[in-house]
């Protein structure tokens, strides 16, 4: 398009947003996994999908092979729903670390 165009430069206001950096602070990292209990939360939109279980199973194997004593998998309801009351507290009280998998 090169007709009827302005002689002066044009300035536009960019309608796209600046991306907010993640504000969450990282949890304290375990020095190693030896003797630890790890919780894996399956928060996929459909936690029953078999591919999710395959990924989580593989993560479980890696954690156990790396020294974790127990790996507990927890299924959260679809992501459109709020997390069950008390679930985070239960995870915190029974685990040294947590892995959350999200997706659709």
């Amino acid at each position, binding site marked *: 398009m090169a007709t009827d165009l302005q002689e002066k430069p044009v300035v536009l*206001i960019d*309608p796209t947003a600046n991306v907010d950096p993640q504000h969450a602070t990282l949890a304290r990292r375990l020095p190693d996994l030896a003797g630890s209990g790890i919780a894996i939360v399956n928060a996929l939109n459909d936690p029953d999908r078999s591919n999710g279980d395959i990924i989580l199973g593989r993560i479980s194997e890696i954690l156990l092979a790396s020294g974790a004593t127990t790996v507990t998998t927890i*299924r959260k309801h679809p992501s459109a729903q709020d997390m069950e009351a008390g679930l985070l507290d239960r995870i915190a009280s029974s685990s040294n670390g947590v892995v959350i998998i999200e997706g659709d």
Partner: protein
Amino acid sequence: MESPQTASQRKLPRGVDPEEFCHDQGWTDGLPVVAPTPARVKAMLATVERDPQELLGVFLPLRGQVTVEKIAANAVLAGCLPEHFPVVLTAISCLAAQEDRLGIFLTTIHGDSPLLIINGPVVKESSFNAGSNVFGPGCRANATVGRAISLAVRNIALGPPGKYDEVTFAHPGKYSYCIAEYEEASPWAPFHVDRGFKETESTVTVVGAQAPLNVADMVSTNPDSLLTTIADAMAIRGSYNAYFGGETLVVLSPTHARILADGGLSKADVQQALFEQARRPLKDLRGGGSFGFGNVLRWPDWVDTSDDEFMVPIAHRPEDVLILVAGGRIGSYSCVVFCFHGFPSITLPIERG
């Protein structure tokens, strides 16, 4: 003297068509846009007493920072008049009020879009259409305000299709989805008054909505028969609502609303009747649709899942049936709009500068 360029300003090379530049940047929905020059954006901002850099929220999934100025730029892009901007800003505030739910609402491949419902004096003052062709084209206020929300969602929260937006079909309302209630043609109090606002206040309601399903009932002359038709349209196995609940918006034409009111029904009576009648036997819902999806059913506790004949409610509470009056005066039709259970409707007052 030229004012200094801010971080949100983009200087175009000489000879570049501003509108084509907008398309090239991926800022548009594919239709022609109005280039958001500083003067046009300033005209939008002049209609509200807000700091242009005021942060309204951070919208998932992009984690885009929503500022008043960014919304004004999107309102210009969409073709809004400055007088529309307070309405646009209120609709964005409705989304921001449920910021934690936006990620799933905007990215679900189910394909829901924000539907704006306008009530109060602003409907006439800014010439919103509440009558014939209410979901269709032809009214600048409806078209551009709805489009401004759609563009803002795309530019600030979602990104272009293929980034986070992998919806299977979407629906035409994703271009623009804004209606007004036909308050003068309604036999009942306006929708926003039911929600605690004064009739003299102007409001925006946002619901997460599917496309409208037209319901024809040309024959019924009494409430029982008409409600049977509408309830039947609500109780389909293919909706999320049959399994997960949430709200269902029923937009009654003035003709249908009059049949119900002349039959002695209040709006609450209509909600109660549709809550009771919009049901399907459990055996119809089992084994298909979204039964068991996500290993969860969100049916009320009183649903007897051991009884195949149990009539499962589509709306879990009468108040989950949202009743609105709109559309042409001539026409024995209503609309059913299924709403996303993960994003409950919200109504906020419009504030103007």
